[in-house]
């Protein structure tokens, strides 16, 4: 990756990047991709015991950052704004407070913050980040599923070709892969808990898939 340096007249002009707050005013309530499934009612009326637990972590702020982590200026600014350094070891993630950063590729990271903090973080990046980079708010196109429970690994084994054995998939590891043939970013958040970042358009399909795949173990929906 090259760092494009502004020269001549461009150097003196003020950056005119406009960031739009994707969250509407307080009067409008956001709807997650699983709004129609009414998980609150399912959680209230459904079973309380089972081998697999499902929870949608909805309406989070997701930002895709592409920059050069070998560029010390960019790495320093990213660390300052995120409160934690970009993970440069492949397939790792870092978490601090309510901010988490996933390694996606050598020059790409997925940042997750609470939905109401995305705009401020985005604005701060565009104000401070030097050089050639890209930051895109992908909150509207994605949602996050949390899978946990004693049989969570059995469900994952049915759904993804990735090796999730403890020796290959320690806590904190993150992989971009296929889950039930659709793309997902899978991260291990605990011994028996995983987190899936999935596309909005596949959210309903994957919800149906997870219900089917975990039927034999018993699915507990949490809201």
């Amino acid at each position, binding site marked *: 990756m090259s760092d494009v340096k502004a020269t001549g007249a461009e150097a003196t002009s003020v950056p005119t990047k406009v960031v739009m707050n994707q969250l509407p005013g307080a009067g409008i309530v956001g709807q997650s991709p699983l709004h129609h499934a009414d998980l609150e009612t399912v959680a209230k009326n459904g079973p309380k015991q089972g081998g697999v637990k499902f929870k949608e972590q909805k309406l989070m702020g997701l930002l895709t950052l592409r920059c050069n982590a070998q560029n010390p200026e960019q790495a320093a600014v990213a660390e300052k704004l995120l409160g934690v350094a970009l993970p440069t070891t*492949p397939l790792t993630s870092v978490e601090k407070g309510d901010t988490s950063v996933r390694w996606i590729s050598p020059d790409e990271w997925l940042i997750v913050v609470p939905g109401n903090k995305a705009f401020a973080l985005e604005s701060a990046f565009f104000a401070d980040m030097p050089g050639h980079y890209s930051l895109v708010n992908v909150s509207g196109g994605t949602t996050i599923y949390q899978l946990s429970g004693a049989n969570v690994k059995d469900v994952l084994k049915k759904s993804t070709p990735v090796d999730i054995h403890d020796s290959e998939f320690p806590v904190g590891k993150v992989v971009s892969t296929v889950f039930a043939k659709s793309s997902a970013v899978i991260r291990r958040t605990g011994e028996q808990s995983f987190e899936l970042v999935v596309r909005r358009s596949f959210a309903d399909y994957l919800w149906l898939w997870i219900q089917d795949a975990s039927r034999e173990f018993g699915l507990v929906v949490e809201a």
Partner: protein
Amino acid sequence: MFHIYCPHCSEYREEEEFHYHGQAHIARPLDPDSCTDEEWGNYMFFRKNPKGIHHELWDHAAGCRKFFNVTRNTVTYEIKEVYKIGEQPKVVADAVPSK
């Protein structure tokens, strides 16, 4: 199924995550305007189809989405090596003996 080592993710993944993009190391003519039709046609349409060692381009489509090269034996399907774009293969086919 291939079990392919991604040089960017630094681990083996299933073929399902990858996309094949044909022969590697195809250099675009530096000055297309001065190419003859034959030179441009060779660049555009003609590809090797070797029996044995073949250098090919793959894309980790469901993972890091980076491109890289693979040297593969088209007879045994054995993957000899993977290497990043811009690097040269270590495993190459023996020169064809002159008759």
